[in-house]
Structure formats: C-alpha cells, structure tokens
C-alpha cells in the first residue's frame, strides 16, 4: 500500500512539473517579472532606500512638503468626487436603460458609451472651448448677463472633465449587474409583500452593489492615474502631474518622483482592497438557466416618461459636449474669444494627414503590436491558468493582474529607471531610446484585460471537447490548432480589440516614455499640438481621428461578439 501511495505521489509531482508547461511558465514569468514586477520593485527600492539602507526618510519628506500633501489630498478628493458625481450621472441612466421601456432607450444605451471613446485629455480641450473662461458658454453669459462662471478653474475643471468622461464605467457596470439580476429574486420579494422603494433598498440595491462597486473602483483608479487632463487644464497640484514634473524637470534621480509613485500605487491598492469584499459577491445573483426570462423592463408613460427623457437627455447632452466641441474645433481656423469659430477650414486635417502623418501611423503600429503581444501572452497565460497543472500558476496570475493597480506614470517611471542607459540585448541601444518601449508599456498595461477575455473564452471550452478530439486520434498539437484555438478565437479577438482601443489613446505613460518627437503616437501629438494656440486646430483633428479609432474598435467589438455595449469597459 505504501508503495502504491509513493508511486501516486511521484506521478502527481510529475504532473506538477510537466516539462512543456514548465517551460512555458518560465518564459511567461520571465517576461512579466522583467516588464512588470522588477520595474515596480525598482520604484519601491528607490523610494525606500537612503544611503544604501532601507529608510522611511523620503516618505517623511514627502509628508513634510505642503505641496505634496496638497497634491495627495487633491488626488484623493478628485477620485472621490469623480465617483460621487459619476454615480449621480451614471446610476439613473443605468436604471433607466435597463428597467424602463421607452422610446429612446436604445439611443441612451448607445450614446451612453460615447464619452469613453474620447480620450479625457481631448475632452479637456473641448471643455475649455465650450465652458472655459473665454469659452462658448461664458462668452454668451458675459454678453447677455454680464457674468461668467468658472466651470473649468482649478480642481473643479479637472473633476468636471473626469466625471463626464468616466461615468460610463459606473453606468455600464451597474447596468450589466441589473440586467443580469435573476428576476425571480425580485419577484420573490414581491411575493413576500415587498414592493416599490423598499424592494429596491432591501433586494435590488444590495444585489447590484458588486457591479456598481466595480465601476466606481475603475473610475477612482483611472482618475488618480490620469495625467493628461490636469496637464491640459494646467492644474498640476495632483499626484500624477507632480510625479511627471519631478521626473521630467528635476531628473530621473529625483527621489520625490518615486515616492509619489509609491503613494499612487498605494492609493490604487487601497481602493482595490476596500472593494474586494463586494467584488467577490458578484457571481451569485446572476440569471439561472431555466427561469422564465420575464423581462423586468416596464413601460413608462406620462410624467415619468417626461422625467426620464429630460434627465437622460440633459445628462447625455452634457457628456457629449466635448465631442461637439472637438469636432467644431477641428474645422476652425481661428476660434478664440468668439462663440463659434470665425473662419472655417479643412486644413487642420491636411496638416495631420500630410505634414505630420507619423502620429496616426505610429498609433496604428504601436497599438496593433501591443494588441498582438497581449493576445499571445493572454492566450498562453489563460491556457496555463485554466488547463495547466504546473505549480506556480497563481504567481503568474498575480503578476499579470498587477497592472490594474499600477498607474501609467508609475510604470513609465519604473521603465525609465530600469531600461535607461544600457543597451538592451539584441537592440543595440537602450530600450528607452526605441519606440519599442511604448509597445511594451501598452501591452503590459492592457494585459490584465486580455488575460481576462482569454480566460473567459478558455473556460467556456469544456475540456471534454478537447478530450473527444484526442480520443479520436488527434495529438496534442493538432487538437490545439483544430479544436481549442478556433473555439477561443472569439475571446482572443475581443481581448486584442480591447487592448488596441485602449492603447491607441493611452497618454499617461506615453508622455513620459516617448523617446523622440517623431516617434510619438496620436495621443502625444494631440498633447504637443495643444501646447500652442495655432496647434489647437490640428490637435482637435487628431482628436477626431482618436475618437473615430476608438469608436470603430468599439463598434467592431460589439458587432462581432454582440456582448452588449461596453464590453471593453467593464471590470
């Protein structure tokens, strides 16, 4: 008996050390450690050592500086405010779009995602044109009432732009949770005598909470990470711009920049940690098969319908202002101190298509490469996570998920620290001197999403499908290419598209990592153009291109996979 037990254990160990899977695991781990874990650890190391010893002195210095304390408070505040205001906008829209039947519901569901297709820093410019000190609205106010309202001044402007850009995260995640809610859970409550607002408070709300929290968490993390908006609005008393300014002006060896990075990571982690309890609840309340799919959407009429229309109409109008503003600006020759442009032109498009075509070309190149890398890595990681048996898979999962909590600025700082000043093997120059650094940054930042998409696709393929193929005489490799891969294709393309869409408008890490002007992608181009008054037209034209790119990707995503709008933007 003991012999058999020993044999069994040896066999079990052999499975855990399967050489092919082990090799794959090692390759993946190396990549993830080099490009995610190690740079992050370097940032930590710099922040926590002084004179070669572990020390908290830099941290203490951080809190001793009023500017930094203010930046921390402002970052926290902007995150919280964006969540609060984003909830005020997103929650009613989510409820309307799922629970009410009315004319315009589809429009609401479709338009609700549009704010996300405009990069926030592009939106910032557009808001300046419309709501800024000498923007459309204030000029009209000045003309007719002799007053102006400082919508865009200071932190208020940043929060306004971020709220209207990020609220769809809350709307989409909440709407998905609502739509997935098993109707019998609410019917049962009615059956027990509960209805109206009590029903909402006692049953609906607690069950939708995980979805809502996921959305709110995304908003908070993105807002803290957002570098483009504050830079565009010239409000730098926030963590991300402070880190950026320290590193770019004081230098790569300025310790304060690293400490700020650590603080940002801690903020993200705290948010994740606080939300953890709710996120794990998410799975239970979804529709069970076999229930009569009674749709809980009910028709609204009369004053309620009017209310729904007015509320969703005005919120959407506000959220779509930047799209309008940027479109107008892109055709403007001169647009300052006037309600509408004085002169119109198509020349801005000529400029970006013929004089600086590299911005668009670079974006396509980098984003496609990053998407490709993500699909490969995502598929391999998902394969090991779902089908693999080797030890160490959970480490892989943990590292691949980390970028969710690593702000773009932090990753960029880590890369500069690690890859600066030495020739990368096989490249003949430092990695940071090559445009490849951007591709690496994009692919690592989006990896968690692709891993999730591939993982989900992989889990839907029952192992018996593969076993059936092997049983019929197909070997491992043929089985993979004939059965597994075709079945996974949907998930792979979805993951790739998500990576492509989000990479094409990535700014936080881009600004810090672009080695030379002509290697900059679209987002960088917009940033550069927007620095000068004459550049605003071409900058806006690039913005329109960015919007169209993201829109096309999003439409493709929804067309191909019909998973409902906003798959790319759900946690």
């Amino acid at each position: 008996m003991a012999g058999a037990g020993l044999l069994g254990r040896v066999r079990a160990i052999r499975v855990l050390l399967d050489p092919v899977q082990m090799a794959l695991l090692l390759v993946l781990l190396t990549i993830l450690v080099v490009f995610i874990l190690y740079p992050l650890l370097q940032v930590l190391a710099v922040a926590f050592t002084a004179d070669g010893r572990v020390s908290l002195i830099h941290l203490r210095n951080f809190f001793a500086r009023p500017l930094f304390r203010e930046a921390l408070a402002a970052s926290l505040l902007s995150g919280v405010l964006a969540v609060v205001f984003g909830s005020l906008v997103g929650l009613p829209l989510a409820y309307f779009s799922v629970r009410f039947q009315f004319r315009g519901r589809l429009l609401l569901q479709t338009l609700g995602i549009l704010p996300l297709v405009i990069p926030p820093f592009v939106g910032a410019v557009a808001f300046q044109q419309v709501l800024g000190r000498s923007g459309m609205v204030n000029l009209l106010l000045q003309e007719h009432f002799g007053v102006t309202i400082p919508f865009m001044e200071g932190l208020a402007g940043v929060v306004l732009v971020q709220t209207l850009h990020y609220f769809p995260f809350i709307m989409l995640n909440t709407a998905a949770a609502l739509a997935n809610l098993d109707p019998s859970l609410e019917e049962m409550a009615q059956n027990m005598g509960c209805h109206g607002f009590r029903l909402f408070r006692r049953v609906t709300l607690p069950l939708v909470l995980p979805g809502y929290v996921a959305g709110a968490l995304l908003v908070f993390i993105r807002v803290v990470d957002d570098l483009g908006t504050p830079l565009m609005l010239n409000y730098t008393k926030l963590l991300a711009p402070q880190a950026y300014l320290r590193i770019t002006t004081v230098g790569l060896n300025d310790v304060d920049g690293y400490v700020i990075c650590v603080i940002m990571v801690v903020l993200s982690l705290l948010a994740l940690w606080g939300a953890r309890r709710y996120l794990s609840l998410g799975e239970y309340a979804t529709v069970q098969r076999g229930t009569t799919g009674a749709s809980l959407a009910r028709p609204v009429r009369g004053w309620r319908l009017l209310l729904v229309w007015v509320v969703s109409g005005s919120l959407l109008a506000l959220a779509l202002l930047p799209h309008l503003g940027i479109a107008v600006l892109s055709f403007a020759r001169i647009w300052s101190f006037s309600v509408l442009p004085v002169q119109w032109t198509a020349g801005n498009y000529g400029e970006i298509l013929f004089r600086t075509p590299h911005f668009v070309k670079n974006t396509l190149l980098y984003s496609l490469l990053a998407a490709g890398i993500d699909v490969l890595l995502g598929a391999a990681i998902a394969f090991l996570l779902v089908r693999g048996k080797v030890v160490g898979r959970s480490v892989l999962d943990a590292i691949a998920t980390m970028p969710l909590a690593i702000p773009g600025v932090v990753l960029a700082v880590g890369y500069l620290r690690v890859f600066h000043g030495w020739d990368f093997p096989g490249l003949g120059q430092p990695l940071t001197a090559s445009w490849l650094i951007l591709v690496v940054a994009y692919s690592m930042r989006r990896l968690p999403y692709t891993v999730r998409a591939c993982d989900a696709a992989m889990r839907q393929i029952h192992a018996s499908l593969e076993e059936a193929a092997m049983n019929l005489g197909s070997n491992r490799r043929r089985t993979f290419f004939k059965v597994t891969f075709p079945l996974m294709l949907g998930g792979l393309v979805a993951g790739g598209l998500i990576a492509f869409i989000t990479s094409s408008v990535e700014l936080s890490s881009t600004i810090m990592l672009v080695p030379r002007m002509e290697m900059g992608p679209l987002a960088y181009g917009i940033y550069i153009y927007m620095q000068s008054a004459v550049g605003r037209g071409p900058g806006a034209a690039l913005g329109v291109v960015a919007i169209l790119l993201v829109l096309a990707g999003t439409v493709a995503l929804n067309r191909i996979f019909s998973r409902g709008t906003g798959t790319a933007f759900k946690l």
Partner: protein
Amino acid sequence: MGSQPFAAKAAEVRIEGVSKRFGETWAVREVTLRIGRGEFFTFLGPSGCGKTTLLRIVAGFAVPDAGEVCFDEERVTDLPPWRRNAGMVFQSYALWPHLSVQENVAFGLRERRLPAAEIRERVVAALALVGLAGMERRRPSQLSGGQQQRVALARTLVVEPRVLLLDEPLSNLDAKLREQMGHELTRIQRELGITTIYVTHDQEEALGLSGRIAVMDGGRIVQEGTPQEVYHRPARRFVAEFVGVSNVFPGTVREASPGRLVAEVPGIGLLEASPDHAALPQPGAPVLLSVRPEAMTLWGPEEKPAGKNAARGMVRASTFQGASVEYEVLLEGGRPVRVSTATPKGQRPFPPGATVTVCFDPADVILIPPEAR
C-alpha cells in the same frame, strides 16, 4: 397561534376562463379550474405547455388577457403580487444571496412589521418544520441544493400564505433527494392543511404526490381528475401517452353493447374491450384503444389463454429491469408494442427473435374518446 406554528388560512382558488398570450403564442387558453381548500393540486404537462405561466397568473406576476382568479370570494385578478399573500417557491429557489438563512426566512415577516421576538420565534419554528434547525447563520451559497430548497419552502410557509405555489420544486435535485423531498412536501402540506398548487412535467411525481391533477397541453387543460382517473381513464391519446407509457391502437367499432365493444384494428384484427362508460361509440365510428404495457402478458407462439385479446409477434428487444422485463414486440401486422411483465421466477425471459403471443384482458383495454376538435 395555537400549537401549530402556522395556522395556514387555506383558501379555495378559482380560475375562471383565464387566457394569456405572448405575441402570437397562447401560453394559457381558456382555463377554468376550482382548487379546493387544503387540496394538493398539480398542473402536469410537457415543457412549454403553459404551467408556469398559469402559476404566475395565480401568484400575480402575470396579468391574464382574459378571465378571473379568485381566492375564496375575493377577486384577485388585478391585485399586485405583494397584496395577494400567495406563497411561491421558485424553481431556482430564488434565495437572496446577500442575506443569511435567518434573514431570508424572516424577510416576509419583517415586511408584515411583526415584532422582532415573534419573528425570531417563527423563523425557528419554520426552520424546524423543514428540518434545518441550527442553520440560521449560513449563507445560501453554503447550503446544498436540498437544503436551499428547504429554506425556500420555510421562507414561503412562514408568512402563512393563503395558497402555496410550487414551480417544479424538485427538478434541481438528484433522484434520491427528489423522492425524499417529495414525501416531506406531502407531510408538511398535510400537517398545515394548506391549499397547494404544484407544477411539474414529471408524471411519476404528479401521480405520487397529488390529490388531483390537471393535465395541460398547448395552454389548455386536457384532463382533470385524481391520479387514478388520469392514469386509468385518459380522456385523450395525449394523456394516455404522456402519463405513463401506452400502446395506442386506432380502429373502427364493429359491435357495441353495454360492457362489450369489438373494434377492428388494421393489421391485428378484432380486439375486444369491456368499457364501463355510458357513452358508447356507434358501430362504424373510429376509436382509439389504449393498453398499458404492464397489462400485457407474453406467451409461447401457440398458446392463447381463453377470453383474452391475442396477437402474434416477434420479440425485437428485451431489457431486464430487476422487478420487471420490458419487451419491444413487433406484431405481425407490423405494429410495435411495449410489453412489461413481472420477472418470471426460475424462467428465462424470451430472447430477441423469439415468436410470441401478446395477450391482454378486455377489461384492461382503455377506450379513448375521439378527439374533440
């Protein structure tokens, strides 16, 4: 409250001419039923025949396009679900995942604004009734399927509903557990004397548990009666074939007198039946004769017991099932029949290929009235 924890104020349920349509499909069509106080009544029918829809109309989740629903003398057709006090147990149990067992069961009592002490007492009693004492703190996800089912039942019973509505409550349980829960359900139902409407597509369940059954097909009630009536006197070919297994022979009446009917069945010849109906079909009229497999016996090729219907055929397949042997026999006229015989002691069953005589008593031939269209 008395000694019973729940003095269910059972109601009589009347469904009068109820119809419900979804787009082009009629889910429920002109259904009229009277379900007595304290009765265990079952809607039985294949999937998609409208059972759930009818139950949801009684619960108030769906409003009928036509017809009325009454609890005792009260017309409830337009009452919203939360004002009906009709307790439902969903097929999926619909336990709230964010609440503990205790909170799930207490939910309806809190809605009724009962004092906290009474709520606690009644929750304990309800959980004891379904055999789950001591599970108060658990979350639904920490319970097995059978336990979840019991919590769902306790949660519904604890509010003392006027009628208990069960939608395929056993369908998510495995076979052993299903039987056990079925017994328990009837015990609790009898103990409480609560009017119960039970929905199932499983004829064994329906026959075993119910006081009366309504067999549904395409949104209509095709037969209503006790399990015995439905099984032994199917009103239609559909009922004969859906409730249990039947061999159905279409034929033409040749002779008809009280207690004796002879019909000619193509490919078999003359078959005799001894109907006890008053309404006999006329000679020349088409009839359907139905015979249950267990009413048939098999004999050697040359044997023919007196006074029985007999037809020769060949065994195509036989399956040993322990207490019985199931045969598929191809009659000489080309018609296959299913035969179920008690396992003969010390004898081997007829092997496939054997020529046999299939016999059955005229008293076991069920006359199915011609379809009313």
